[in-house]
Protein backbone atom coordinates (compact mmCIF):
# COMPACT_ATOMS: atom_id res chain seq x y z
CA UNK A 1 0.00 0.00 0.00
CA UNK A 2 1.48 3.34 -0.90
CA UNK A 3 1.41 6.29 1.46
CA UNK A 4 0.24 9.82 0.84
CA UNK A 5 1.80 12.86 2.36
CA UNK A 6 1.01 16.52 2.41
CA UNK A 7 3.44 18.47 4.51
CA UNK A 8 3.12 22.14 5.29
CA UNK A 9 5.44 24.10 7.50
CA UNK A 10 5.66 27.80 8.22
CA UNK A 11 8.76 29.26 9.78
CA UNK A 12 10.03 32.81 9.98
CA UNK A 13 12.63 32.27 7.29
CA UNK A 14 11.33 29.21 5.49
CA UNK A 15 8.07 27.72 4.35
CA UNK A 16 7.27 24.34 2.92
CA UNK A 17 4.30 22.94 1.06
CA UNK A 18 4.95 19.55 -0.49
CA UNK A 19 2.60 16.81 -1.62
CA UNK A 20 3.99 13.43 -2.58
CA UNK A 21 3.41 9.71 -2.54
CA UNK A 22 5.70 7.20 -0.91
CA UNK A 23 5.76 3.99 -2.92
CA UNK A 24 5.07 0.64 -1.33
CA UNK A 25 8.60 -0.53 -2.01
CA UNK A 26 11.74 0.87 -3.56
CA UNK A 27 13.69 4.04 -3.07
CA UNK A 28 12.23 7.51 -3.26
CA UNK A 29 15.03 9.98 -3.79
CA UNK A 30 14.57 13.44 -2.36
CA UNK A 31 16.82 15.66 -4.39
CA UNK A 32 17.54 19.37 -4.31
CA UNK A 33 20.09 22.05 -3.51
CA UNK A 34 21.04 22.72 0.08
CA UNK A 35 18.36 24.87 1.66
CA UNK A 36 15.63 23.39 -0.50
CA UNK A 37 14.09 21.66 2.51
CA UNK A 38 15.04 18.03 1.88
CA UNK A 39 16.17 17.27 5.40
CA UNK A 40 13.32 19.27 6.92
CA UNK A 41 10.86 17.22 4.89
CA UNK A 42 12.35 14.01 6.26
CA UNK A 43 12.26 15.39 9.80
CA UNK A 44 8.61 16.36 9.39
CA UNK A 45 7.83 12.84 8.30
CA UNK A 46 9.67 11.45 11.32
CA UNK A 47 7.82 13.76 13.69
CA UNK A 48 10.99 15.58 14.69
CA UNK A 49 9.74 19.05 13.70
CA UNK A 50 7.19 21.10 15.59
CA UNK A 51 4.10 22.80 14.18
CA UNK A 52 3.84 20.70 11.04
CA UNK A 53 0.51 20.79 9.26
CA UNK A 54 -0.96 18.65 6.53
CA UNK A 55 -1.79 15.01 6.25
CA UNK A 56 0.41 11.95 6.50
CA UNK A 57 -1.08 8.54 6.04
CA UNK A 58 1.16 5.48 5.96
CA UNK A 59 -0.26 2.07 5.07
CA UNK A 60 -3.71 3.22 6.12
CA UNK A 61 -2.53 4.61 9.46
CA UNK A 62 -2.89 8.35 9.95
CA UNK A 63 0.23 9.91 11.43
CA UNK A 64 -0.71 13.52 10.97
CA UNK A 65 -3.97 15.32 10.46
CA UNK A 66 -5.89 18.22 11.94
CA UNK A 67 -6.31 16.56 15.34
CA UNK A 68 -3.70 13.84 15.08
CA UNK A 69 0.03 14.16 15.44
CA UNK A 70 1.82 10.96 16.36
CA UNK A 71 5.08 11.33 18.22
CA UNK A 72 8.32 10.09 16.70
CA UNK A 73 8.14 6.99 18.90
CA UNK A 74 4.67 6.15 17.62
CA UNK A 75 5.63 6.42 13.96
CA UNK A 76 7.25 3.19 12.95
CA UNK A 77 10.15 4.73 11.06
CA UNK A 78 13.87 4.36 11.25
CA UNK A 79 16.13 7.28 10.60
CA UNK A 80 19.78 7.25 9.50
CA UNK A 81 21.28 10.65 10.21
CA UNK A 82 24.01 12.26 8.19
CA UNK A 83 26.45 11.92 11.07
CA UNK A 84 25.23 8.48 12.13
CA UNK A 85 24.51 9.58 15.69
CA UNK A 86 25.66 6.38 17.31
CA UNK A 87 25.48 6.57 21.09
CA UNK A 88 29.12 7.14 22.12
CA UNK A 89 28.72 5.52 25.54
CA UNK A 90 27.52 2.19 24.16
CA UNK A 91 29.30 -0.55 22.26
CA UNK A 92 28.27 -1.23 18.69
CA UNK A 93 26.28 -4.22 19.93
CA UNK A 94 24.37 -2.11 22.49
CA UNK A 95 23.74 0.51 19.84
CA UNK A 96 22.31 -2.12 17.53
CA UNK A 97 20.08 -3.51 20.27
CA UNK A 98 18.75 -0.12 21.32
CA UNK A 99 16.07 0.09 18.67
CA UNK A 100 15.48 -3.65 18.41
CA UNK A 101 14.68 -4.02 22.10
CA UNK A 102 12.19 -1.17 21.95
CA UNK A 103 10.18 -2.25 18.95
CA UNK A 104 6.96 -4.16 19.34
CA UNK A 105 7.23 -6.24 16.17
CA UNK A 106 8.11 -9.91 16.46
CA UNK A 107 11.68 -10.81 15.67
CA UNK A 108 10.77 -12.60 12.46
CA UNK A 109 11.10 -9.52 10.23
CA UNK A 110 14.82 -9.07 10.00
CA UNK A 111 17.35 -11.82 10.38
CA UNK A 112 19.96 -10.31 12.65
CA UNK A 113 22.92 -12.41 11.57
CA UNK A 114 22.07 -12.03 7.92
CA UNK A 115 21.84 -8.26 8.30
CA UNK A 116 25.17 -8.08 10.14
CA UNK A 117 26.73 -10.13 7.37
CA UNK A 118 25.21 -7.94 4.70
CA UNK A 119 26.56 -4.80 6.34
CA UNK A 120 29.80 -6.51 7.33
CA UNK A 121 29.65 -5.35 10.94
CA UNK A 122 29.85 -8.63 12.85
CA UNK A 123 33.50 -8.04 13.72
CA UNK A 124 32.74 -4.58 15.13
CA UNK A 125 30.21 -5.59 17.80
CA UNK A 126 32.49 -5.19 20.83
CA UNK A 127 33.92 -1.85 19.75
CA UNK A 128 32.87 1.65 20.72
CA UNK A 129 31.81 4.20 18.08
CA UNK A 130 34.99 6.26 18.47
CA UNK A 131 36.96 3.19 17.38
CA UNK A 132 35.15 3.00 14.04
CA UNK A 133 35.88 4.65 10.71
CA UNK A 134 33.30 6.94 9.16
CA UNK A 135 32.09 4.22 6.81
CA UNK A 136 31.83 1.66 9.59
CA UNK A 137 29.84 4.10 11.72
CA UNK A 138 27.33 4.59 8.93
CA UNK A 139 27.00 0.86 8.36
CA UNK A 140 26.29 0.37 12.06
CA UNK A 141 23.80 3.26 11.97
CA UNK A 142 21.99 1.62 9.06
CA UNK A 143 21.98 -1.73 10.85
CA UNK A 144 20.65 -0.12 14.03
CA UNK A 145 17.85 1.51 12.07
CA UNK A 146 16.87 -1.67 10.27
CA UNK A 147 16.86 -3.85 13.38
CA UNK A 148 13.93 -1.78 14.57
CA UNK A 149 11.95 -3.33 11.71
CA UNK A 150 10.52 -0.04 10.53
CA UNK A 151 7.70 0.47 8.08
CA UNK A 152 9.86 3.00 6.37
CA UNK A 153 13.57 3.77 6.31
CA UNK A 154 14.58 7.43 6.16
CA UNK A 155 18.15 8.17 5.08
CA UNK A 156 19.41 11.70 5.37
CA UNK A 157 22.51 12.03 3.20
CA UNK A 158 24.13 9.02 4.84
CA UNK A 159 27.18 9.34 2.60
CA UNK A 160 27.66 13.10 2.72
CA UNK A 161 30.09 13.07 5.63
CA UNK A 162 32.30 10.44 4.01
CA UNK A 163 35.21 10.93 1.66
CA UNK A 164 35.19 9.39 -1.79
CA UNK A 165 36.92 6.19 -0.74
CA UNK A 166 34.57 5.58 2.19
CA UNK A 167 31.63 6.33 -0.06
CA UNK A 168 32.72 3.62 -2.44
CA UNK A 169 33.06 1.34 0.55
CA UNK A 170 29.45 1.81 1.64
CA UNK A 171 27.66 2.18 -1.70
CA UNK A 172 27.50 -1.55 -2.39
CA UNK A 173 25.80 -2.16 0.97
CA UNK A 174 23.11 0.37 0.18
CA UNK A 175 22.59 -1.26 -3.21
CA UNK A 176 22.10 -4.65 -1.61
CA UNK A 177 19.64 -3.14 0.84
CA UNK A 178 17.75 -1.61 -2.03
CA UNK A 179 17.10 -5.08 -3.37
CA UNK A 180 16.51 -6.90 -0.10
CA UNK A 181 14.37 -4.44 1.79
CA UNK A 182 10.65 -4.91 1.72
CA UNK A 183 9.90 -1.45 3.03
CA UNK A 184 10.23 1.85 1.21
CA UNK A 185 13.34 3.96 1.64
CA UNK A 186 13.41 7.73 1.47
CA UNK A 187 16.84 8.86 0.44
CA UNK A 188 17.85 12.49 0.78
CA UNK A 189 20.84 13.57 -1.25
CA UNK A 190 22.20 16.36 -3.36
CA UNK A 191 24.50 13.97 -5.18
CA UNK A 192 23.23 13.23 -8.68
CA UNK A 193 25.26 10.02 -9.04
CA UNK A 194 23.88 8.55 -5.83
CA UNK A 195 20.38 9.26 -7.06
CA UNK A 196 21.05 7.50 -10.35
CA UNK A 197 22.34 4.44 -8.57
CA UNK A 198 19.69 3.94 -5.90
CA UNK A 199 16.48 5.65 -6.62
CA UNK A 200 13.37 4.36 -8.31
CA UNK A 201 11.29 7.47 -7.75
CA UNK A 202 12.21 11.09 -7.40
CA UNK A 203 10.96 14.06 -5.49
CA UNK A 204 12.80 17.15 -6.65
CA UNK A 205 12.61 20.00 -4.14
CA UNK A 206 13.19 23.67 -4.66
CA UNK A 207 12.78 26.29 -1.92
CA UNK A 208 10.32 24.25 0.08
CA UNK A 209 8.20 23.27 -2.90
CA UNK A 210 8.03 20.11 -4.95
CA UNK A 211 9.28 20.64 -8.49
CA UNK A 212 8.77 17.12 -9.67
CA UNK A 213 7.46 13.95 -8.16
CA UNK A 214 7.32 10.64 -9.96
CA UNK A 215 9.25 7.83 -11.58
CA UNK A 216 13.04 8.22 -11.84
CA UNK A 217 13.09 7.52 -15.58
CA UNK A 218 10.57 10.28 -16.22
CA UNK A 219 12.33 12.65 -13.85
CA UNK A 220 15.59 12.31 -15.76
CA UNK A 221 14.13 13.24 -19.14
CA UNK A 222 11.44 15.79 -18.28
CA UNK A 223 12.29 19.46 -18.32
CA UNK A 224 10.08 20.17 -15.26
CA UNK A 225 12.30 18.14 -12.95
CA UNK A 226 15.28 20.36 -13.80
CA UNK A 227 17.45 17.25 -13.70
CA UNK A 228 18.09 17.31 -17.45
CA UNK A 229 20.40 20.24 -17.90
CA UNK A 230 23.56 20.77 -19.90
CA UNK A 231 25.60 20.51 -16.68
CA UNK A 232 23.98 17.41 -15.34
CA UNK A 233 22.17 14.85 -17.44
CA UNK A 234 21.90 11.09 -17.55
CA UNK A 235 19.32 8.39 -18.05
CA UNK A 236 18.75 5.11 -16.32
CA UNK A 237 17.69 1.98 -18.21
CA UNK A 238 16.65 -1.29 -16.64
CA UNK A 239 17.69 -4.52 -18.36
CA UNK A 240 19.04 -8.00 -17.94
CA UNK A 241 22.15 -9.81 -19.14
CA UNK A 242 21.35 -11.85 -22.26
CA UNK A 243 24.76 -12.95 -23.55
CA UNK A 244 28.34 -13.50 -22.42
CA UNK A 245 31.41 -13.55 -24.67
CA UNK A 246 34.19 -15.10 -22.64
CA UNK A 247 36.82 -14.56 -25.36
CA UNK A 248 36.31 -10.82 -25.27
CA UNK A 249 35.37 -10.55 -21.62
CA UNK A 250 32.20 -8.70 -22.51
CA UNK A 251 28.48 -9.09 -21.78
CA UNK A 252 25.34 -8.01 -23.59
CA UNK A 253 22.46 -6.42 -21.73
CA UNK A 254 18.94 -6.25 -23.17
CA UNK A 255 16.81 -3.40 -21.96
CA UNK A 256 13.14 -3.89 -21.23
CA UNK A 257 12.33 -2.12 -24.50
CA UNK A 258 14.59 -4.32 -26.58
CA UNK A 259 17.74 -2.26 -27.03
CA UNK A 260 21.09 -3.97 -26.65
CA UNK A 261 24.19 -2.71 -24.92
CA UNK A 262 27.56 -4.43 -24.85
CA UNK A 263 29.38 -3.87 -21.63
CA UNK A 264 32.94 -4.90 -20.78
CA UNK A 265 33.20 -7.54 -18.04
CA UNK A 266 31.42 -10.84 -17.57
CA UNK A 267 28.07 -10.79 -15.84
CA UNK A 268 25.90 -13.86 -15.21
CA UNK A 269 23.19 -14.41 -17.80
CA UNK A 270 19.74 -13.40 -16.61
CA UNK A 271 21.14 -10.98 -14.04
CA UNK A 272 19.08 -7.80 -13.77
CA UNK A 273 21.13 -4.67 -14.12
CA UNK A 274 20.59 -0.95 -14.16
CA UNK A 275 22.40 0.95 -16.88
CA UNK A 276 23.36 4.55 -16.29
CA UNK A 277 24.14 6.49 -19.44
CA UNK A 278 25.46 10.03 -19.10
CA UNK A 279 24.45 12.45 -21.86
CA UNK A 280 28.07 13.47 -22.32
CA UNK A 281 28.91 9.87 -23.31
CA UNK A 282 26.34 9.79 -26.11
CA UNK A 283 27.14 11.18 -29.59
CA UNK A 284 24.91 11.41 -32.66
CA UNK A 285 25.47 10.48 -36.31
CA UNK A 286 23.22 10.69 -39.34
CA UNK A 287 24.48 7.44 -40.87
CA UNK A 288 25.36 4.29 -39.01
CA UNK A 289 29.12 4.10 -38.57
CA UNK A 290 30.33 0.70 -39.66
CA UNK A 291 33.93 0.87 -38.63
CA UNK A 292 34.05 2.36 -35.17
CA UNK A 293 35.55 1.46 -31.83
CA UNK A 294 32.21 2.18 -30.29
CA UNK A 295 30.18 -1.00 -29.98
CA UNK A 296 26.89 0.44 -28.90
CA UNK A 297 25.27 2.10 -31.89
CA UNK A 298 21.52 2.37 -31.70
CA UNK A 299 18.90 3.74 -34.05
CA UNK A 300 16.55 6.37 -32.72
CA UNK A 301 14.61 9.55 -33.37
CA UNK A 302 15.12 13.01 -31.98
CA UNK A 303 12.32 13.55 -29.49
CA UNK A 304 13.01 16.97 -28.02
CA UNK A 305 15.61 19.59 -27.31
CA UNK A 306 15.75 20.06 -23.55
CA UNK A 307 18.40 22.63 -22.75
CA UNK A 308 20.87 24.89 -24.50
CA UNK A 309 23.83 26.55 -22.87
CA UNK A 310 27.45 27.53 -23.48
CA UNK A 311 27.47 26.29 -27.07
CA UNK A 312 26.05 22.91 -26.16
CA UNK A 313 22.64 21.39 -26.51
CA UNK A 314 20.92 18.54 -24.68
CA UNK A 315 18.85 16.35 -26.98
CA UNK A 316 16.34 13.69 -25.99
CA UNK A 317 16.35 10.67 -28.26
CA UNK A 318 13.73 7.98 -28.40
CA UNK A 319 15.16 4.53 -29.14
CA UNK A 320 12.32 1.97 -29.16
CA UNK A 321 10.72 3.75 -26.18
CA UNK A 322 14.01 3.90 -24.28
CA UNK A 323 14.72 7.56 -23.74
CA UNK A 324 18.35 8.56 -24.00
CA UNK A 325 20.00 11.94 -23.70
CA UNK A 326 22.86 13.26 -25.78
CA UNK A 327 24.95 16.32 -25.09
CA UNK A 328 26.45 17.74 -28.29
CA UNK A 329 27.66 21.09 -29.52
CA UNK A 330 25.19 23.48 -31.07
CA UNK A 331 27.46 23.53 -34.10
CA UNK A 332 27.14 19.76 -34.63
CA UNK A 333 23.43 20.05 -34.06
CA UNK A 334 23.27 22.50 -37.00
CA UNK A 335 25.70 20.59 -39.22
CA UNK A 336 23.76 17.35 -38.77
CA UNK A 337 20.55 19.30 -39.45
CA UNK A 338 18.91 17.71 -36.43
CA UNK A 339 15.25 18.33 -35.85
CA UNK A 340 12.48 16.70 -33.88
CA UNK A 341 11.46 13.31 -35.30
CA UNK A 342 14.56 13.03 -37.49
CA UNK A 343 15.98 9.49 -37.69
CA UNK A 344 19.52 9.27 -36.33
CA UNK A 345 22.04 6.89 -34.77
CA UNK A 346 23.47 7.33 -31.36
CA UNK A 347 26.87 6.07 -30.28
CA UNK A 348 27.16 5.26 -26.61
CA UNK A 349 30.72 5.44 -25.40
CA UNK A 350 30.33 4.32 -21.83
CA UNK A 351 27.71 2.72 -19.65
CA UNK A 352 27.80 2.46 -15.89
CA UNK A 353 26.15 -0.65 -14.56
CA UNK A 354 24.69 -1.47 -11.23
CA UNK A 355 23.78 -5.06 -10.54
CA UNK A 356 20.43 -5.71 -8.96
Amino acid at each position, binding site marked *: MSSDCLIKLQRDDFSMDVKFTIPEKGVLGIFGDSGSGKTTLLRCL*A*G*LEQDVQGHIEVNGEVWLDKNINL*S*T*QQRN*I*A*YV*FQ*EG*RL*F*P*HMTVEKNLQ*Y*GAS*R*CSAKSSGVDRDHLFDLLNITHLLKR*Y*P*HQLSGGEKQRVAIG*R*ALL*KKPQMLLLDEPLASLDKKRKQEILPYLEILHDELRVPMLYVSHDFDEMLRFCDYMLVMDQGLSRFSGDLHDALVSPESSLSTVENAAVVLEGSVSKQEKDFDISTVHTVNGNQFQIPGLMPIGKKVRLIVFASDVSVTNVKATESSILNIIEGRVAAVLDKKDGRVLVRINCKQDMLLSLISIKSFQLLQLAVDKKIYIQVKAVVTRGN
Partner: protein
Amino acid sequence: MFPGFEPLLLTVKLAGLTTLILLVIGTPVAWWLANTRCKAKPVIEAVVALPIVLPPTVLGFYLLLILSPQSVFGSWWFELTGQTLTFSFSGLVIASVIYSFPFVVQPIHNAFESVGRDMMEAAYTLGAKPVDAFFTVAVPLAKRGFITGAVLGFAHTLGEFGVVLMVGGNIPGETRVVSIAIYDHVESLEYSQAHVLAGILLVFAFAAMLLMYVLNHRLKVKL
Protein backbone atom coordinates in the same frame (compact mmCIF):
# COMPACT_ATOMS: atom_id res chain seq x y z
CA MET B 1 34.17 9.11 70.65
CA PHE B 2 36.17 12.28 70.83
CA PRO B 3 33.52 15.00 71.26
CA GLY B 4 35.33 17.28 68.81
CA PHE B 5 34.24 15.03 65.98
CA GLU B 6 30.54 15.65 66.52
CA PRO B 7 30.51 18.76 64.29
CA LEU B 8 32.35 16.76 61.68
CA LEU B 9 29.70 14.04 61.58
CA LEU B 10 26.96 16.63 61.51
CA THR B 11 28.64 18.43 58.65
CA VAL B 12 29.03 15.28 56.58
CA LYS B 13 25.40 14.37 57.27
CA LEU B 14 24.27 17.85 56.22
CA ALA B 15 26.40 17.93 53.08
CA GLY B 16 25.40 14.40 52.05
CA LEU B 17 21.70 15.01 52.53
CA THR B 18 21.90 18.37 50.77
CA THR B 19 23.73 16.86 47.79
CA LEU B 20 21.20 14.05 47.50
CA ILE B 21 18.26 16.45 47.58
CA LEU B 22 19.98 18.74 45.08
CA LEU B 23 20.59 15.91 42.63
CA VAL B 24 16.91 15.02 42.76
CA ILE B 25 15.49 18.52 42.35
CA GLY B 26 18.41 20.04 40.45
CA THR B 27 18.35 17.52 37.60
CA PRO B 28 14.89 18.43 36.26
CA VAL B 29 15.75 22.13 36.58
CA ALA B 30 19.00 21.59 34.67
CA TRP B 31 17.16 19.61 32.00
CA TRP B 32 14.52 22.28 31.66
CA LEU B 33 17.17 25.00 31.35
CA ALA B 34 19.05 23.01 28.71
CA ASN B 35 15.98 22.41 26.56
CA THR B 36 13.58 25.27 27.05
CA ARG B 37 12.86 27.90 24.45
CA CYS B 38 10.98 29.90 27.07
CA LYS B 39 11.73 33.62 26.98
CA ALA B 40 12.01 33.72 30.76
CA LYS B 41 15.04 31.41 30.70
CA PRO B 42 17.63 34.13 31.47
CA VAL B 43 15.58 35.22 34.48
CA ILE B 44 15.49 31.67 35.83
CA GLU B 45 19.19 31.26 35.13
CA ALA B 46 19.95 34.45 37.02
CA VAL B 47 17.86 33.33 40.00
CA VAL B 48 19.60 29.95 40.04
CA ALA B 49 23.02 31.65 39.97
CA LEU B 50 22.20 34.20 42.70
CA PRO B 51 23.66 32.25 45.65
CA ILE B 52 27.07 32.35 43.95
CA VAL B 53 27.33 36.13 44.22
CA LEU B 54 25.09 36.93 47.16
CA PRO B 55 26.91 37.41 50.50
CA PRO B 56 25.96 34.47 52.74
CA THR B 57 24.71 36.91 55.35
CA VAL B 58 22.22 38.40 52.89
CA LEU B 59 21.01 34.97 51.88
CA GLY B 60 20.94 33.94 55.53
CA PHE B 61 18.99 37.02 56.51
CA TYR B 62 16.21 36.38 53.99
CA LEU B 63 16.18 32.68 54.81
CA LEU B 64 15.82 33.55 58.48
CA LEU B 65 12.74 35.58 57.64
CA ILE B 66 11.26 32.87 55.40
CA LEU B 67 11.99 30.02 57.81
CA SER B 68 10.88 31.77 61.02
CA PRO B 69 7.66 30.49 62.60
CA GLN B 70 6.09 33.91 61.97
CA SER B 71 6.39 33.49 58.20
CA VAL B 72 3.88 31.65 55.99
CA PHE B 73 6.30 28.83 55.17
CA GLY B 74 7.70 28.60 58.69
CA SER B 75 4.29 28.45 60.36
CA TRP B 76 3.06 25.90 57.83
CA TRP B 77 6.09 23.74 58.65
CA PHE B 78 5.46 24.18 62.37
CA GLU B 79 1.86 23.01 62.02
CA LEU B 80 2.98 20.07 59.91
CA THR B 81 5.89 18.86 62.04
CA GLY B 82 5.61 20.65 65.36
CA GLN B 83 9.14 21.94 64.92
CA THR B 84 10.55 25.29 63.98
CA LEU B 85 12.83 25.57 60.99
CA THR B 86 15.09 28.22 62.39
CA PHE B 87 17.87 26.89 64.61
CA SER B 88 17.15 23.29 63.59
CA PHE B 89 18.86 20.72 61.40
CA SER B 90 15.92 20.63 58.97
CA GLY B 91 16.16 24.39 58.48
CA LEU B 92 19.87 24.01 57.88
CA VAL B 93 19.20 21.44 55.15
CA ILE B 94 16.74 23.77 53.41
CA ALA B 95 19.18 26.66 53.66
CA SER B 96 22.03 24.53 52.32
CA VAL B 97 19.95 23.32 49.39
CA ILE B 98 19.36 26.92 48.35
CA TYR B 99 22.91 27.99 49.13
CA SER B 100 24.51 25.20 47.05
CA PHE B 101 21.84 25.06 44.33
CA PRO B 102 23.86 26.65 41.50
CA PHE B 103 26.91 24.51 42.24
CA VAL B 104 24.93 21.38 41.42
CA VAL B 105 22.59 22.71 38.73
CA GLN B 106 25.12 24.53 36.57
CA PRO B 107 27.49 21.62 35.83
CA ILE B 108 24.53 19.34 35.07
CA HIS B 109 22.93 22.04 32.93
CA ASN B 110 26.15 22.47 30.94
CA ALA B 111 26.51 18.72 30.54
CA PHE B 112 22.94 18.38 29.25
CA GLU B 113 23.58 21.21 26.80
CA SER B 114 26.62 19.48 25.41
CA VAL B 115 24.65 16.26 24.98
CA GLY B 116 22.39 18.27 22.71
CA ARG B 117 19.16 17.32 20.99
CA ASP B 118 20.80 15.15 18.34
CA MET B 119 21.33 12.08 20.48
CA MET B 120 17.87 12.38 22.00
CA GLU B 121 16.36 12.55 18.53
CA ALA B 122 18.28 9.44 17.55
CA ALA B 123 16.86 7.67 20.61
CA TYR B 124 13.31 8.81 19.75
CA THR B 125 13.61 7.49 16.19
CA LEU B 126 14.65 4.16 17.69
CA GLY B 127 11.42 4.02 19.66
CA ALA B 128 12.57 5.32 23.05
CA LYS B 129 10.03 7.41 24.96
CA PRO B 130 11.30 10.69 26.46
CA VAL B 131 11.86 9.37 30.00
CA ASP B 132 13.51 6.22 28.65
CA ALA B 133 15.81 8.26 26.38
CA PHE B 134 16.59 10.60 29.27
CA PHE B 135 17.87 7.80 31.50
CA THR B 136 19.55 5.69 28.81
CA VAL B 137 21.12 8.45 26.71
CA ALA B 138 21.09 11.91 28.31
CA VAL B 139 22.10 10.90 31.86
CA PRO B 140 24.97 8.55 30.88
CA LEU B 141 26.32 11.12 28.43
CA ALA B 142 26.08 13.83 31.09
CA LYS B 143 27.60 11.76 33.89
CA ARG B 144 30.62 14.00 34.21
CA GLY B 145 28.28 16.90 34.90
CA PHE B 146 26.59 14.86 37.61
CA ILE B 147 29.89 14.01 39.26
CA THR B 148 31.11 17.59 39.13
CA GLY B 149 27.76 18.83 40.46
CA ALA B 150 27.67 16.31 43.29
CA VAL B 151 31.27 16.97 44.39
CA LEU B 152 30.92 20.74 44.18
CA GLY B 153 27.57 20.69 45.97
CA PHE B 154 29.00 18.51 48.74
CA ALA B 155 32.21 20.48 49.12
CA HIS B 156 30.47 23.83 49.01
CA THR B 157 28.04 22.77 51.74
CA LEU B 158 30.99 21.60 53.86
CA GLY B 159 32.42 25.09 53.85
CA GLU B 160 29.17 26.85 54.68
CA PHE B 161 29.52 29.39 57.47
CA GLY B 162 27.59 32.64 57.14
CA VAL B 163 24.24 31.12 56.24
CA VAL B 164 24.50 28.54 59.02
CA LEU B 165 25.27 31.19 61.56
CA MET B 166 22.28 33.25 60.47
CA VAL B 167 19.61 30.51 60.35
CA GLY B 168 21.07 27.74 62.46
CA GLY B 169 23.02 29.37 65.18
CA ASN B 170 25.40 27.22 67.14
CA ILE B 171 23.53 24.33 68.75
CA PRO B 172 25.81 21.33 69.42
CA GLY B 173 24.61 18.20 67.62
CA GLU B 174 21.89 20.13 65.80
CA THR B 175 23.42 23.02 63.90
CA ARG B 176 27.03 23.26 65.07
CA VAL B 177 28.89 22.34 61.89
CA VAL B 178 32.66 22.18 61.46
CA SER B 179 33.16 25.70 60.20
CA ILE B 180 31.29 27.08 63.21
CA ALA B 181 33.18 24.81 65.57
CA ILE B 182 36.50 26.01 64.17
CA TYR B 183 35.38 29.61 64.63
CA ASP B 184 34.46 28.85 68.25
CA HIS B 185 37.77 27.15 68.96
CA VAL B 186 39.74 30.06 67.55
CA GLU B 187 37.64 32.54 69.53
CA SER B 188 38.44 30.61 72.69
CA LEU B 189 42.09 30.37 71.63
CA GLU B 190 41.86 26.55 71.43
CA TYR B 191 44.23 26.42 68.48
CA SER B 192 45.00 22.71 68.74
CA GLN B 193 41.34 21.70 68.32
CA ALA B 194 40.97 24.24 65.55
CA HIS B 195 44.04 22.73 63.89
CA VAL B 196 42.58 19.23 63.92
CA LEU B 197 39.25 20.24 62.42
CA ALA B 198 40.71 22.68 59.91
CA GLY B 199 43.27 20.10 58.85
CA ILE B 200 40.62 17.45 58.35
CA LEU B 201 38.50 19.86 56.31
CA LEU B 202 41.49 20.84 54.20
CA VAL B 203 42.40 17.23 53.44
CA PHE B 204 38.78 16.40 52.76
CA ALA B 205 38.29 19.32 50.39
CA PHE B 206 41.46 18.42 48.52
CA ALA B 207 40.41 14.77 48.27
CA ALA B 208 37.01 15.77 46.92
CA MET B 209 38.50 17.99 44.24
CA LEU B 210 41.06 15.35 43.33
CA LEU B 211 38.34 12.72 43.04
CA MET B 212 36.32 15.01 40.79
CA TYR B 213 39.16 15.71 38.40
CA VAL B 214 40.31 12.11 38.27
CA LEU B 215 36.80 10.85 37.56
CA ASN B 216 36.19 13.59 35.02
CA HIS B 217 39.27 12.53 33.18
CA ARG B 218 38.47 8.83 33.36
CA LEU B 219 34.85 9.11 32.40
CA LYS B 220 35.34 11.34 29.41
CA VAL B 221 33.02 9.99 26.72
CA LYS B 222 34.98 9.62 23.53
CA LEU B 223 33.25 10.91 20.44
